[in-house]
């Protein structure tokens, strides 16, 4: 295995484009090193992107949105004084991943590119409408996060392409997000079901919504039927029931010892209801 630590994304892209065999990019390494050790994936070339300038920066843009470097860790997101005020659901979702030790290394871009359907930060990013800059030999393009994972462990990134920045939209007024997951314990586990909700209000009425589900299909899902079930409502009982039904209907989960199909399908509806209530309360400026 060759270890590279390029000084720019263009150089990283060129290295990957020229490489033969298996190439992996190394950000926090909390998945790459586990796969390396377990002999699941032994890269011929490992490209460490942490020596590239700006990869640890969290920057507020002129429009109120955020740009996060690809090596920003979960701990750095949680410690940031303002990011979590704008996007508590996104920051809490990232914070649910692994231990304190893992939080010191793990990154949003890594969680996205690992392409696990159960990744906690990914449904929150889907709901928030996060986009990423993808750098390749032909230059940069901006891609919605929901267009990155294509199957468990697979992404739409081509040879020589890598994520070079994560863009979180401006929060704007009267809006809130939330992410909840079910695990059979309180810490150190992988989602059996996860659900992200992001919405905006006009008065008491929901005018915009994005709802995502994790661990209930081969990829994280952005569920339009869930959004439609609550847009135009005040999140009353009927809307919550319609939301839960739409969430359950979108599920296509695996059946394993951690959760049966029936259980995951039911819990998706329950989490959607609860996450929507939290996001709604946050949009109203209430504590939740």
């Amino acid at each position, binding site marked *: 295995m060759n270890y590279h630590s390029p000084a720019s994304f263009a150089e990283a892209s060129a290295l990957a484009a020229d490489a033969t065999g298996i190439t992996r990019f190394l950000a926090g390494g909390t998945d790459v090193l586990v796969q390396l050790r377990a002999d699941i994936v032994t890269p011929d070339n490992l490209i460490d992107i942490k020596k590239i300038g700006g990869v640890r920066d969290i920057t507020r843009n002129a429009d109120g949105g955020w740009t996060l470097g690809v090596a920003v*860790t979960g701990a750095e997101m949680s410690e940031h004084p303002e990011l979590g005020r704008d996007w508590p659901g996104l920051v809490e979702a990232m914070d649910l991943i692994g231990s304190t030790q893992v939080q010191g290394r793990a990154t949003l871009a890594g969680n996205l590119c690992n392409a696990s359907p159960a990744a906690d930060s990914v449904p929150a990013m889907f709901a928030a409408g996060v986009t990423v800059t993808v750098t390749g030999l032909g230059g940069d393009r901006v891609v919605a996060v929901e267009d990155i994972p294509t199957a468990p462990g697979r992404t739409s990134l081509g040879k020589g392409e890598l994520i070079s920045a994560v863009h979180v939209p401006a929060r704007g007024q009267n809006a809130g997000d939330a992410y909840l997951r079910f695990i059979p314990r309180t*810490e150190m586990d992988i989602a059996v079901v996860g659900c992200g909700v992001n919405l905006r209000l006009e008065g008491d009425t929901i005018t915009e919504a994005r709802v995502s589900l994790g661990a209930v299909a081969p990829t994280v899902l952005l569920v339009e039927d869930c959004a439609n079930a609550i847009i135009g409502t005040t999140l009353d009982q009927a809307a919550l029931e319609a939301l839960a039904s739409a969430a359950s209907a979108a599920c296509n989960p695996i059946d394993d010892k951690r959760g049966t199909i029936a259980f995951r399908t039911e819990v998706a509806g329950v989490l959607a209801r609860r996450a929507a209530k939290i996001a709604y309360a946050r949009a109203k400026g209430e504590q939740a």
Partner: protein
Amino acid sequence: MSKIHVSTTVNGDTVEYLCDPRETLLDCLRDRLNLTGAKEGCGTGDCGACSVTVDGRLVCSCLMLGAEAEGGQIETVEGMADGEELHPLQKKFIEYAALQCGVCTPGVLVAAKALLEKNPDPTEEETRYWLAGNLCRCTGYDKIIRAVMDTAAEMREAS
């Protein structure tokens, strides 16, 4: 396969080693630098027995390559005591018998030290969540938590 030359700082001392690109920081600490305090429990970031801090940040040294440590500031359990004088956490762990087989202890100590540096007055809940990534199969955790809470109280009084 060529080895990588790494220059880094461990417990305040500048050190250099040559490592294979596949070697983890844990491998390098133990096999290149003979610092065997950090233990390999799982090797996959679940158990925390290999906990060290890198640039002040608590990490699993099994989830980081030795090559990534270039230019870093690494602190391990070997750096906790001041000569013969044990760190307050170490003394309290002995007093509370907060260990049995001891394999998890270096990682727990490093993690607890990182907690108290960040938050000198943690609640029991905060302490339990902070240490959730440090598995102990002997003590049932209660003695560990009590030792950390008592150390925190004592260190607050002393400061």
